[in-house]
């Protein structure tokens, strides 16, 4: 008996284990996600009830029919039974209509609550989707305090943020389940979504519209942190890259300028200012590589540079042959870009 009682919570825990985590709509970290989760649970509960009731009715109907059939008698129609069925049907229609209308109203209300933030946002971030990564530009009234990073969005906790959504190639979709629903990024069209993170933490975002061969590896992180930490981070990001600290880093920097790297990437403070690939000014401060494909560390960086096409086949980073010493120098330099 005791074992059976303990089994219920275990089952529920097992069932809902998938709901928690850094990429889950059922583990809301913001007001809007909260509303979405709420409507999800309410819908689930109501529809489950409806489902159960329908099944019961179905079972009753099926069993009754079989019983009558078994007796082999044809029951003559009765006025009273007719009225009862009519009442039942009427009640069924009314209940269904009321349920539908209530859910619609509730959904409408939730929609309204989702757009509560509009006009109250304090920051604007422009997110541009590309095959297969995210360019993130923090806008500011003073243009020199704007800056560009990639595959990582940091926001202060509790501050509503407007995200302008753009695409440079095909249609993508911006989705951070812990914070809000999806919104498409469409080439040539300005779209936007307002988000707020009410709880500190790191949340995973993912492209939610199939966009080509590496769609699955087109992720990013949203990091919500206290205002002071965010401001410090922003000031560090605005600053140009730190100059090479030793000879090996200097060699790496020269190599960066003289090789294919400089054709696509930029490192502010150097002559590299290309913009078709992620800005690397503060690469080593980011949590992931290749749009959430690998956690950032020097080893993964080496693997990525040596053969990007086996880690993320079809992506636009080409294989550039480097000698082992050149690779070490390049790694030393890139790893210094905090």
């Amino acid at each position, binding site marked *: 008996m005791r074992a059976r009682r303990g089994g219920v919570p275990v089952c529920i825990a097992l069932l809902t284990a998938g709901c928690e985590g850094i990429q889950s709509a059922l583990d809301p970290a913001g007001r809007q996600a909260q509303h979405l989760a709420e409507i999800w649970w309410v819908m689930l509960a109501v529809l489950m009830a409806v489902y159960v009731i329908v099944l019961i009715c179905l079972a009753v109907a099926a069993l009754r029919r079989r019983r009558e059939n078994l007796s082999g008698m044809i029951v003559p129609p009765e006025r009273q039974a007719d009225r009862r069925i009519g009442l039942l049907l009427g009640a069924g229609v009314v209940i269904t209509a009321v349920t539908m209308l209530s859910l619609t109203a509730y959904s409408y209300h939730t929609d309204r609550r989702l757009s509560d933030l509009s006009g109250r946002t304090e920051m604007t971030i422009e997110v541009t989707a590309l095959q297969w990564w995210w360019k993130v530009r923090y806008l500011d009234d003073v243009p020199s305090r704007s800056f560009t990073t990639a595959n990582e969005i940091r926001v202060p906790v509790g501050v509503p943020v407007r995200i302008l959504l753009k695409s440079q*190639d095909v249609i993508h979709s911006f989705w951070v389940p812990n914070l809000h629903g999806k919104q498409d990024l469409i080439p040539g069209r300005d779209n936007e979504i307002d988000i707020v993170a009410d709880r500190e933490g790191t949340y995973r975002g993912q492209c939610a519209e199939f966009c080509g061969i590496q769609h699955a590896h087109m992720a990013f992180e949203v990091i919500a942190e206290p205002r002071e930490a965010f401001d410090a981070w922003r000031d560090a990001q605005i600053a140009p890259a730190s100059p090479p600290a030793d000879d090996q880093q200097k060699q790496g920097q020269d190599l960066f300028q003289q090789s*294919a790297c400089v*054709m*696509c990437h930029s490192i502010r403070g150097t002559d590299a200012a290309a913009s078709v690939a992620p800005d690397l000014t503060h690469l080593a401060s980011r949590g992931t590589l290749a749009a959430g494909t690998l956690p950032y560390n020097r080893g993964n960086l080496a693997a990525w540079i040596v053969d990007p*096409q086996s880690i993320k*086949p079809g992506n636009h980073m080409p*294989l550039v042959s480097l000698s082992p010493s050149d690779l070490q120098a390049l790694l030393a330099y890139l790893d210094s870009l905090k």
Partner: protein
Amino acid sequence: MSLHCRRALSILAALFLAAGLFACEREERDSRGPTAPETGPDPGSITLSDLYAGSPTRPAPDLRRDQFEKNAFHLSEGKRLFTWFNCTGCHAQGGGNIGPPLMDEKWIYGSNLENIFASIVQGRPNGMPSFRDKIPEQQVWEIAAYVRSLSGQAPKAAASGRNDQINSKPAEQSTPKASPTDTDPHSPSVEGRQ
């Protein structure tokens, strides 16, 4: 339905299925290229003149021609890189600007794939920059193949069917094939082109 008829139908269905499976294997997408350092086209495969001292000894074509020129993936990659690396800044979408047009029949430094490869890597004296060490060789091949498709030198099945930007001209697939002024006996036969 007669047994005869049914048998015929099942054979037909099997054939369709087989044909469908073949269609799955359209072409290889080699996004990585060789891992060992390449050395570009055989230097012996490039000449810049059609006039030969003594009897003509035309160079042998590089074996990679078909691999890049007949492959839709490589051509589309070449098209993307043509914009990324600012080729469009000087050559527009093939109509030319600071640099010469690439969609007509006139070629200053040779129209075949190896010559275009060499022009990109070495640069040319009247303003074409050298991209040596700046573009990995696989990508140079792709760009060179795309450049040839601008004047209709690529097979229709492989050439790009649409433009990514402002629709400035018919896409490569519908560009009439130009006859390059430099004669090249090894020029690949182009399917679907007159």
